[in-house]
């Protein structure tokens, strides 16, 4: 489907007309463009395909059709241009914390150069270890650390390669609430310092609002010109809000009136199977937002 937005492929991260299905359609014509430096959070009802979207950008899945570009280049297999922090399994159990962080340097380097630059790599890893406030823990093995500490190491490990975009798939989902909040603050600080671009998938609305500069709602609860057979529809981005950093912590944010209003709005836009917006009415307020609909879809 031709669009007038072709120059947008030069945008930082650009997805257009992306479809993905397994047994059923998961992602149904996703159009998404993300600017550099954005902290983009993705929420949606469970099973809507948030993780699938992230996996497409990561390169472990390929779309059935449509295009994905990063820096104007088509997204291929996983590579250092996209860093990833999973909820679990980001760290290698047989390596110490320091060795885990060093991997981004040691893995692409040959044996001799690795020997030669060992000291430099260790120094750099120690610097990152300090950055994630784990000084002195470098000689421990991942299983000796708490869940929050492990995720910090995983973040440090991803930062070493300076990826263009950091993908995070519910990275704090397995942490207890206190640690979780601490990690959110920490991540924001890091994002601010490093001017990173982050693509953050979560099922937690508070987390999404607290962290993001932009929140995307992915949902299969909508209607379009293809009739009433809802079951066969995959998820679309049904709303796209710019967020303003208020400096309110994620526990306080719950009682913030703006937050309550936005939560209510997003719940009805994306999370309630009984409320279905038409594709033409999606709330796509964010300036980077765009939509390329086929005629059938746009029909009422």
């Amino acid at each position, binding site marked *: 489907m031709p669009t007038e937005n072709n120059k947008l492929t030069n945008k930082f991260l650009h997805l257009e007309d992306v479809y993905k299905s397994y047994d059923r359609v998961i992602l149904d014509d996703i159009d998404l463009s993300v600017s550099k430096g954005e902290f983009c959070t993705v929420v949606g009802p469970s099973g809507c395909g948030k993780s699938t979207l992230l996996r497409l950008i*990561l390169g*472990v899945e390929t779309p059935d059709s449509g295009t994905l570009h990063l820096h104007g280049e088509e997204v291929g*297999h*996983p*590579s*250092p241009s*996209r*860093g*990833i922090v*999973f909820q*679990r*399994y*980001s760290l*290698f*159990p*047989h390596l110490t914390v320091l060795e885990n962080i060093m*991997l*981004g340097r040691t*893995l*692409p380097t040959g044996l001799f150069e690795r020997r030669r630059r060992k000291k430099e790599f260790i120094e750099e890893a120690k610097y990152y270890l300090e950055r994630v406030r784990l000084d002195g823990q470098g000689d421990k*093995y*991942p*299983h*000796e650390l708490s869940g929050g500490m492990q995720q910090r190491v995983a973040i440090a*490990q*991803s930062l*070493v*390669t300076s*990826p263009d975009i950091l993908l995070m798939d519910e990275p704090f989902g397995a942490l207890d609430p206190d640690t979780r909040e601490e990690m959110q603050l920490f991540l924001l600080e890091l994002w601010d310092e490093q001017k990173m671009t982050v693509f953050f998938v979560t099922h937690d609305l508070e987390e999404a609002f607290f962290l993001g500069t932009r929140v995307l709602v992915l949902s299969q609860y909508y209607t379009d010109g293809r009739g009433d057979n809802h079951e066969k529809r995959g998820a679309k981005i049904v709303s796209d809000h710019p967020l303003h950093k208020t400096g309110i912590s994620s526990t306080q944010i719950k009682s913030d009136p703006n937050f309550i209003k936005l939560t209510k709005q997003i719940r009805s836009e994306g999370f309630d199977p009984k409320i279905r917006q038409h594709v033409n009415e999606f709330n796509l307020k964010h300036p980077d937002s765009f939509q390329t609909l086929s005629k059938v879809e746009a029909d009422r």
Partner: protein
Amino acid sequence: MRKHNQIWGIHAQPGKKANIILLLLPFILLVATYLAASHIRHQENPQDKLLPSATQIVKAIDRVALTEDRRTGKYLLWTDTLASLKRLAIGVTAAAIFGLLIGLNMGIYPGIRSLSFSFVTFFSMIPPLAVLPIIFISFGVDEFAKIMLIFIGIFPIISRDIFLTVRKLPQEQITKALTLGASSFAVTYRIILPQILPRLIDAIRLSLGAAWLFLIAAEAIAAMDGLGYRIFLVRRYLAMDVIIPYVLWVTLLGFLFDLILRTIINKRFAWYADRK
């Protein structure tokens, strides 16, 4: 304070002393039963060979382990042990190396998996002892055939075990390594390989029993020395006084190897031992 029962029931908390007593009990019972049975038989017939007395066994040990053989001038037990261990070591090492490489690559590369998975599975179903004649016919009756039997016997077990271990590793790890700039080669040999080494040692531990079985079977049929050879040779004279110490010796060796391998895992791969 409630006093816990030391031995009986689901809530038992055996103390240190109770633990040692319980541990030794079956051994003591076994030895005592044997000695009693032997004693009874010797009262009827002092020449009894089936259940030799402790003195007869000690004499036999002295003969095979501490005295030079009259015919060859060698200490039989040590020559036999050395010959057997050499075969066992070569066979097991070869099976471990090949099993590791095949299992690893089969687990990671889909192409290699398609190529070799069915074949290895098929191969592993061949009963090694059934092809023993084929091995002896095609490789002769020398050392190579015996090593080959051990190899054929345990290589499939190790490669399948490694394969399953690799498959069980979270896919996230491979993805993660790729995003850190690893090549396929680096993923295979620098990320996955070091992680499955302790599992390889476990796989060797589990297959050592089978390795001994194949070794002794091969030595029983065609050999000039070896522990299995000796056991089957003296069987002709009903020399239970030699067979029993030999069997105990083989058992002790097996136990020792297991202990050594387990220690290596605990010392060298603490992250693996602790995680379990």
